[in-house]
Structures are given as C-alpha cells and as structure tokens.
C-alpha cells in the first residue's frame, strides 16, 4: 500500500514539474516584449529597461523559471500587466465564481446520474433502460454551451424565471446562487449522461457476479442488493471516470462562463489573452493543469484505497 502511494506521489510530482516546464516554456517563446506592450509606443529606452528589470525580464530564463515556481508555491503569482494588481488576488476573486459553479455542476450531475444509472441497470433491457440509454445518448451529443443558450432562451427570455447572465456577487448568497442555476444545469446534464452510462454498465457487470446471487439467495431484496452490494462495487469505475471527466468539467466551466457573462476564471483568461496579459494566462493555465493533475492523483489514491485487491500491489 505504502509503495503505491509513494510511487503515485513521485509520478504526481514529476507530472507537475513537466507541466510547469511546458507552460513556462510556451509563454517564454512569445514574440514581443511585455515591457514595450505595457508602456506603449512613447516609452524611452531607459524606462523600458527599468520596466524590464522590475518584471525580472533581464534575468536568464532558468532563473526566471525558478522564481516563477518559487512564487507559485508561496502563492505569489506576480503582478498583472494590465490590471496592475497581484494575479493571486485576481484569481481568487474569479475562482469565487468558477469553483462553486463547477462544484454545483458536479454535485448535480452525480445526483442525476445515480438514480438514472440504477434504474437502467435494474431494469436492463426494459423500457426504462431504453429510455435512459436514449436520453443519455442524446445528452452525450449536445454541446453544453448550446444547451446553455437554449436554457437562457426558455428560462430567462421566455418564462423570465431566472437571470440570463451576469453575477451579482456573493454579498447575498441567494441571488448569487440563482445566477449559477442555469450555468450549473447546462454543465451538469451532459456530464450526467456520461456518468449514468458508466454507472449502468459497471452495475450490470457487478450484478452478474456470484456474490450478488448469494446476497439474493440469503433473502436480501433486489433493491437492497442493488444499493448495498452492487452500488458499492460499481463505485470504483464510476470514480475513475469522474476523475477523468474533471478536466472536461473545468473546460466546460470556462466555456459556459462566456454564455452567461460570469466573471470567472474563464472570462479572466480570455480577457487576458486579448490584452496580452500573459502573466495572467500563464498563472491560470498552470492552475488548471495543477487541478487536473491533482484530481488524477487523488482518484488513483482513492482507487488504491478502495480496492483491497490493489492494496498489495505496486
């Protein structure tokens, strides 16, 4: 067990390091001088040199990389070139929208997928199964941002029950949450379709096992067998897919923020691209990649912990 965790930790660290080199190198090769960009056309060579020095651009790349990583670990992401405020503050501000949105969507998709997958597996081959499979097949094909636009058309413009976009902030949590309902639903439904299908096939596989027959033979009802034995054993493949889906959830969140004009990390990074505020792009991209790598790592650890068969192996 300890060997697995140590091995996974080593891979985790290695992946983080490699990803940080890729992100840093990509931003490094950018043509154009950020100092010149910040100061405009009228800058004198002296002010340019001073600006370059204050940004640390006169240092060799290797030193700047170490500086950047060191800052990142301390939570110091540098100063935004356009907003002139610490990138960490900008990111924290925007994450207060993106992270709750992703979390609500994740919870919602799990809450939807669980009953759908259970019903489909329990009623395999029947009408209910066919209905779940049909609806989820459609769910896989619908782009979440288009679905979001349809939701806005119906709920915000036609029925006028929910806001079409924008975010009022968290000062009143209720109105804040209201603004996230449609985005979260748009994100959750396609995710739920995938999860429900994975859960269904995992459950069907588990239901064919001997111990399920034993559980039934000792008098446990179908429902109790499904919930107590099958669901627990089907949780592993579902967990793995959930982990793999995380990066799609992040990407989806970034795109959905654009549909609803939500001031989240996605809007921040797109504005930063237009304004050539590369230090913001660099930090947000690195944070997203760190999130994906961390979730992958946690999924694998959870997998190892949950499956006793894997405990002895490396």
């Amino acid at each position, binding site marked *: 067990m300890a060997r697995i965790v140590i091995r996974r930790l080593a891979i985790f660290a290695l992946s983080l390091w490699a990803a940080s080199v890729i992100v840093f190198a990509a931003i490094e090769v950018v043509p154009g001088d950020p100092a010149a960009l910040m100061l405009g056309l009228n800058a004198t060579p002296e002010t340019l040199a001073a600006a370059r020095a204050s940004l640390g651009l006169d240092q060799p790349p290797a030193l700047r990389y170490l500086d950047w990583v060191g800052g990142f670990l301390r939570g110091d992401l540098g100063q935004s070139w356009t907003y002139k405020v610490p990138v960490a503050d900008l990111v924290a501000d925007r994450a207060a929208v993106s992270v709750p949105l992703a979390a609500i969507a994740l919870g919602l998709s799990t809450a939807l997928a669980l009953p759908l997958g259970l019903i489909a597996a329990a009623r395999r081959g029947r009408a209910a199964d066919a209905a779940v499979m049909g609806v989820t097949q459609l769910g896989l094909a619908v*782009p979440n941002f288009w679905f979001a636009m349809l939701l806005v058309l119906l709920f915000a413009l036609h029925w006028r029950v929910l806001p079409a976009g924008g975010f009022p902030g968290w000062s009143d949590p209720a109105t804040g949450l209201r603004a996230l309902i449609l985005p979260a639903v748009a994100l959750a439904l396609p995710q739920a379709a995938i999860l429900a299908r994975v859960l269904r096939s995992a459950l069907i596989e588990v239901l064919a096992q001997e111990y399920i027959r034993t559980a039934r033979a000792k008098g446990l009802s179908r429902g109790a067998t499904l919930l107590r034995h099958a669901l627990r054993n089907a949780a592993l493949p579902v967990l793995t897919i959930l982990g793999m889906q995380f990066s799609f959830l992040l990407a989806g969140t970034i795109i959905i923020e654009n549909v609803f004009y939500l001031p989240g990390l996605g809007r921040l990074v797109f504005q930063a691209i237009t304004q050539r505020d590369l230090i913001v*792009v660099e930090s947000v991209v690195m944070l997203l990649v760190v999130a994906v*790598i961390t979730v992958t790592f946690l999924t694998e650890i959870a997998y190892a912990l949950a499956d006793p068969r894997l405990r002895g192996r490396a």
Partner: protein
Amino acid sequence: MRAAPGLIAGGVLSAAAAAAALVSLVWTPHDPQAMQIAARLAPPSAAHWLGTDHFGRDIAAMLMAGARVSLGVAVVAVGIGVGLGVPAGLWAAARGGWVDEAVMRLNDVVFAFPALVSAILITAVLGPSATNAIVAIGIFNIPVFARVARAGALSIWTLDFIRAARLAGKGRARISVEHVLPNIAGLLIVQATIQFSLAILAEAGLSYVGLGVQPPAPSWGRMLAEAQTMAAIAPHVAIFPGLAIVTAVLGLNLLGDGLRDALDPRLRPVRTGG
C-alpha cells in the same frame, strides 16, 4: 455482422454530415458568405430553407460550409492522435520496461492539458486560428490513442502466434506492425469514431469562445457565438447550428457503439468528454 438499428442510424447521420461537407465543395443553396442585409434574420422559407442570420447570410449554406470546417478540423486532429499515439502505444507495449514507463508518464503529462487549456496557451502565444484548434485537439488525442493501442497490444503480445513470429526471427517493430496492429485495428477504429465526435464538440467549443476558426470562415461553433445575441429575436439562428452539431456527434457516437458491438461485444472504448 448483424446490422443493428443503432449502427444503421449512426451510419446514416454520419454520412449525412459528411455528404453536407462534400457537397458544399461544389454546391450550396446560396453563397455562404453573401450578405443580404434586407433579408436579415429571416425565418425559414422556400428561398432560405433554414432562414438567414443577422447579415442576411443563408444559414443552410453556412451550415454546409461549416460542416467542411468542423469535420475537417476533427479529421486532422484525430489523425494527429492516431499518427503519434498509436506508434507510441505499440512501442511501449513491444518494449515494456522503462520505455513503457516513460511513454506512459509522458502520456499522463500530455493528458493534463485538456484541449481547451492547450488552445488557451497556444492562442496566447500565436493568436487564434483554426490550425491552433487542430493542434490543441490533436495533442489531447495523442495519449488517448497511445493508451488504447498499448492496452490492446499488450493483450495481443501474450498470444501464441506472436511467440511463433518471434521464433521465426521477426523483430519487435516488425511484429508490432505486421501482427499486432491488424489485430487491434477494430479497437482503434471504434476509438477513432468516438474521438472524432469529441473533436467536433471540442472544435465547436473552441470556435465558440473565439480560439478556433476565425471569420469569415463559417464553423458551427462560430455561428453559435454570433447567434448568441440574436437568439432572443430570432431563435432559429441559434437552433440550427446546434442541431447540426448534435446530428453529427450523435451519428458518430451511434456508429462507434454499433461498430464496437459488431466487431466484438467485449471491446469497450474509453469514453471521456462532455
């Protein structure tokens, strides 16, 4: 091979999307870029089957031309994934040991860059373009195909006929190409179908946020981006491009599932996406 309804439906829908793209090369109902401001935001009619957009461009013509762009991006992106991922996976399986370990760890790192994140990074450096979208989606496809090819190849390497080929003096590379690859081709085709549908979704998303295809080239995602502010007054401009995406993606998914069941019911491709 039993022809299942899903396989047929998938084949028909995919063929329709491909046909729209191919026919658009020689014919579209109107010039997809011709603006007729007088006829802007017109609802579907005999003259404009699917109506017009805010510049009075014919939506049916734009969808056909957009099919060419969307499917084209997906073809090349999946091609990158197959072209680089499959050899890497075959090599990892054939050599095992540290080569396998190195290839798989590299895979993990690439896998940590979802297409959107790669696209953000590439666009920040080089500016937005269809090529960047292709590269970003292609990069994400490499580890997918490497994993599938490796897993498939590992199971083939344990079979007796491979041992026979080894005894006949064939090298690992030659065995990989001559014996392993043909035996995992079905698996790869099924995965390619699914990655193709994911690539269409990814392209649409990237073009929607402005990281992909640039104006005036029509793409389904870009049409949706332009439709967003118009949807309230003319819902058809937002509905038809979305339906085009759903049709193509649904068709490919059904085709992929149908092919998998027809080739080998035990094969189960890794499906991620949303």
